[in-house]
């Protein structure tokens, strides 16, 4: 089965620090993959390289068989890979609707028109549909600065999705969101993602969130992929437990 995203021997060094070492990953269309690892393990570096924010020191990244090394984030987005951000990257002074409209207009035309209005009935309908899917329609005309954190994260993801990407990378979608809201947020996101049939890769620290939604886990440690497989397998892996989830240590302490 063909891969939507494939990395081959991906490496990244910042001077003496190796942030990524020989990362080989193959993601098939429709998968929901969780990326876990402690801080500094190389997860964000991996995402940044794949989305074009960082240039790898060596290795290859293929999106639908096409090499995307050296391409700008802009070009990669237009190829069909979108991302969301750990800290929601929105347009603060504009309304939620305007934020989405800009995302739609941006996706529809690489060279924006100089006179034709951005706010057309068709685009508004698309934005309204997205707002409804995410269940945040009541914030439609509110300025983003007045919108709560959880909703901001949803807008961030909505803006990435409205361009109808084939693949979506989520960078810690539940970070900054309170524990009670995490499940609700991820339920919403994963429902929309499933409805739109988008391949998803998300970086996450919360193991409960990971276990609930993914069909596959990539565990990072010290710049390398420690384990890659179905959740039951990866989470039971003793090395993963030692370096990532730490569940083994907890059990030891309890035993005492």
């Amino acid at each position, binding site marked *: 089965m063909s891969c939507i995203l494939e990395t081959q021997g991906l490496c990244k060094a910042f001077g003496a620090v190796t942030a990524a070492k020989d990362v080989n990953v193959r993601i098939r269309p429709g998968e929901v993959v969780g990326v876990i690892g402690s801080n500094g393990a190389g997860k964000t570096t991996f995402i940044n390289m794949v989305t074009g924010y960082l240039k790898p020191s060596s290795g290859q990244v293929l999106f639908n068989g096409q090499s995307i090394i050296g391409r700008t984030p802009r070009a990669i987005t237009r190829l069909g890979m979108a991302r969301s*951000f750990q800290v929601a990257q929105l347009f603060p002074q504009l309304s939620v609707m305007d934020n989405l409209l800009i995302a739609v207009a941006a996706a529809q035309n690489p060279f924006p028109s100089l006179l034709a209005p951005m706010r057309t009935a068709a685009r508004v309908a698309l934005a309204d549909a997205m707002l409804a899917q995410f269940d945040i329609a009541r914030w439609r005309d509110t300025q983003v600065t007045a919108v709560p954190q959880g909703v901001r994260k949803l807008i961030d993801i909505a803006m990435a999705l409205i361009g109808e990407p084939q693949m979506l990378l989520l960078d810690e979608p539940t970070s900054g969101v309170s524990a009670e809201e995490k499940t609700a947020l991820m339920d919403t996101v994963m429902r929309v993602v499933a409805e739109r049939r988008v391949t998803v890769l998300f970086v996450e620290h919360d193991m409960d969130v990971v276990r609930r939604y993914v069909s596959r886990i990539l565990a990072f440690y010290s710049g390398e992929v420690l384990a890659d497989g179905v959740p039951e397998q990866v989470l039971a892996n003793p090395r993963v437990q030692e370096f990532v989830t730490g569940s083994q240590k907890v059990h030891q302490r309890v035993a005492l």
Partner: protein
Amino acid sequence: MRLNRTELILLGVALLLAAGGLIAPQWLVFLLTMALAKSMVVQGVVMQMRAGLVTFGQGLYFCVGGYAVGMSGHFLDISDLALLLVIGVGAAVLLAMLLGLLMTRYREIFFAMLSLAFSMILYGVLVKSSALGSTDGFNVKAWSLFGWSPAQGQAPLALFIIIVGVCAVLAVLLHRYSRSSAGMMCEAIRENEVRVEYLGQSPRWVLYMNYVAAAAVSALGGGFMALSAGHIDPEMAYWITSGEFVFIALLGGTAHVAAPFIAAIVFAVVRTYAIELVPHSWQMILGFTLLAIIVFLPKGLWSLFTGQARRAKA
């Protein structure tokens, strides 16, 4: 092309203004013409402010427009108003297309200082150029339009009506631009440039188009100023002149396309009286007013800068 309510109001006001010119005293017509010419330059400044860039060198294109008009009349014997303005705008567009390649690489302080540097380069060149009259500049010849020459004493009124008409068209176009995808993309860039990139747009391309368009609009103002004042000099490119445009832009705010027009007129009227009453305190008044605007003026000014401040701190 259907016009919406705002545009209809703009055109209506323009019509009233033109009609008012028929009965207004000569000095007022003259003052308003120059104010409207300056307001076009301010529109150029505002276009860039909406994209989050403050230019301290818009005088460059103001001067290019003015000198292109003056020199075409002087050296090429062209007197047709429309042709002169086309030349002025064309020259500015060519220069902006060149400089824009460099300018769009920078933001904030460096953009401001680089724009200042380029306008001062032109100033330096003109001041040292004896062929162009050095610091004195030179006079601009009388204009005609498609063969028709205004009679003695009629020229100021004729020019006033023409400039009001041009401003009306400009207002409608800028109103559309501000609500177009490109215009909104400028605002998005101001708010969060990185996100714009990740939405598949090129911020540099958008800013480049914006920069060139702003230069064209400003040069139009410079051309009209040359024709109205009948005189051009290097002062047009001096950084204090550019500072004045920034002041008027801040006075009016960036929220509405009519603001620079109104602010420029208010500025011109206040200045006329202030210079007469307190010639040696005029700058001080300007300074205090500017500080007051910055401290007390709501939204219009904040939205310009809070987006950037947040980016700079991140």
